[in-house]
């Protein structure tokens, strides 16, 4: 491993045990990948909070838990610093910023989560609580090396911004945010970012749900570790649609970089995306593929529902505005828990603009800092029929429950929240 003087000094312990162990782990990770040097990371998102997977380590001592689960060491190392040149903010936690009763959580658990967040804040993490860190200004630029705990953000960062990041994982994101290094491997190397597969989109793609379904339709056919260039005549493309697409393609494959011909910066056209390298496979995505992707996710039948959730990834202010406009004057069925998920500063904007009031008067609620699957079964187990406007959230909740899970666009979800029933006619059809 080729190391800089700074990295050598970290390894010999000059910067303390925490940074030393973080870098040792990064070097082991680099060895596994086959990387021979490291690069400096200047943007990170990390996974803070009392997440359920941490319960398998029998301690409530945050630093002991952190050391065992995130650093892989059987000692207690205090997590008390992050790399000064790396802006680090938190991804979702398992709690809303303020509410716990309505999510069926105890005050004790909520307080534990808050205390874990506070320890991370003291270490230098800005508490944001979002899977959509771009909503709060976390925006790595072209060529900037980043790490993130959100797979969709990996794909957005690489594909749309031309920044450089791998999927890594929750532990490695902490290692990088602490020591400021990640293996110089994969998407961190310009040469590795060429397209490998050409996907011609013949399906009609315009509305948000169609971009969501396109992500699944492409992702489910992608060979492991491939880089597609998606090529189609797309209407009115915007960031929200692309973010939904990248979120779903990364959920349904291990895709970290997906060029969109004529739209993303490393693919002015298909030829630019390949940069002279050969294609390893070409295929066409049709309307039939979108319908197949939809039918895989949305359960059959009609029944009453009691859980309708919007916002995965977290809604931006424009989507909240559109939801408020559509729900205004309607009444959510009293048996339905209707919710929108976003990040705290966007909720503040919704408050300021009156959207929160409209949604609450209809009988809904805006939550922040988490999402249904991250809150988990303590919340989900109270309900018997689920509706989502996101493929990723629907798929995640389907892993958590054997109850019916339905999936539709925002307006369909709101209509269902009002009626309290999912009907066969609500299914998306091409």
């Amino acid at each position, binding site marked *: 491993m080729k190391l800089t003087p700074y990295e050598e000094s970290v390894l010999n312990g000059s910067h303390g045990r925490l940074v030393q162990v973080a870098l040792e782990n990064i070097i082991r990770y680099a060895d*596994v*990948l086959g990387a021979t040097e490291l690069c400096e990371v200047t943007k990170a998102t990390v996974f803070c909070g009392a997440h359920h997977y941490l319960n398998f380590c029998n301690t409530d001592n945050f630093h002991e838990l952190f050391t065992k689960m995130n650093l892989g060491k059987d000692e207690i190392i205090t997590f008390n610093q992050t790399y000064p040149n790396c802006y680090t903010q938190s991804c979702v936690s398992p709690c809303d910023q303020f509410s716990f009763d309505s999510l069926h959580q105890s005050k004790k658990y909520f307080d534990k989560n808050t205390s874990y967040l506070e320890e991370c804040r003291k270490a230098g993490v800005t508490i944001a609580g979002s899977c959509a860190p771009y909503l709060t200004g976390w925006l790595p630029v072209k060529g900037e090396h980043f790490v993130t*705990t959100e*797979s969709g953000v990996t794909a957005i960062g690489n594909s749309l911004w031309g920044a450089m990041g*791998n999927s*890594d994982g929750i*532990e490695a994101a902490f290692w990088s945010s602490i020591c400021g290094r990640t293996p110089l491997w994969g998407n961190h190397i310009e040469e590795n970012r060429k397209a490998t597969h050409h996907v011609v989109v013949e399906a009609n793609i315009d509305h948000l749900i169609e971009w969501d379904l396109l992500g699944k339709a492409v992702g489910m056919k992608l060979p*492991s570790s491939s880089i597609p260039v998606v090529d189609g005549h797309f209407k009115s493309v915007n960031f929200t649609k692309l973010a939904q697409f990248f979120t779903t393609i990364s959920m349904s494959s*291990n895709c970290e970089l997906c060029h969109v011909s004529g739209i993303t910066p490393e693919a002015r056209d298909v030829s630019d995306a390949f940069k002279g390298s050969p294609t390893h496979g070409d295929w066409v995505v049709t309307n039939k593929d979108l319908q197949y992707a939809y039918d895989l996710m949305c359960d059959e039948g009609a029944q009453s529902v009691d859980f309708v959730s919007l916002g995965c990834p977290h809604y931006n202010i424009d989507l909240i505005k559109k939801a408020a406009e559509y729900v205004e004057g309607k009444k959510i069925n009293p048996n339905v828990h209707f919710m929108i998920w976003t990040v705290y500063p966007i909720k503040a904007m919704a408050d300021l603009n009156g959207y929160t009031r409209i949604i609450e008067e209809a009988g809904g609620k805006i939550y922040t800092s988490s999402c249904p699957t991250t809150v988990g079964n303590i919340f989900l187990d109270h309900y018997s029929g689920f509706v989502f406007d996101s493929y990723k959230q629907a*798929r995640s909740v389907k892993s958590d429950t054997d109850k019916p899970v339905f999936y539709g666009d925002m307006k369909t979800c709101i209509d269902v929240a009002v009626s309290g029933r999912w009907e066969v006619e609500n299914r998306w059809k091409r």
Partner: protein
Amino acid sequence: MEKIIIKGRGVIKGVAEGEALVCPNSIAGWGGIDPATGIIKEPLNINKGKSIKDTILVMSGSKGSNGWSCYFGAARAAGSAPKGWIFTNIDSSSGVASSIMQIPTVVNFDDSQNPCQLIENGDWVKIDGDTGIVEITKKQYKEKI
């Protein structure tokens, strides 16, 4: 029955052997497995309902959420980890998971030696994380060993 021998790159040292569980389309991250039991929960996974515990887990690579490695790390903490694992091609998420799990790991095979094609559920597989050698005994013969 002669053993089938294939060779990849050994990346986490040590030797492990056990029954293979083969996931050619990997296992989804974040909620794809129940760490307490190792049972695969992913709705569309061909091995849904089977446990990764004490197996030699064979996968193409990772899939889905960046919360991929932490679920395997939690399975390790709960005593439900596989004995060793094989990735047809290493990627960043499986790289982090391997670094955390510290179980014998062999990765990166030639196209002609794709472990997801050569190994089936129930085959007896021995992996050497030092040399990268993988020995496969097909299940119809393993009872005779």
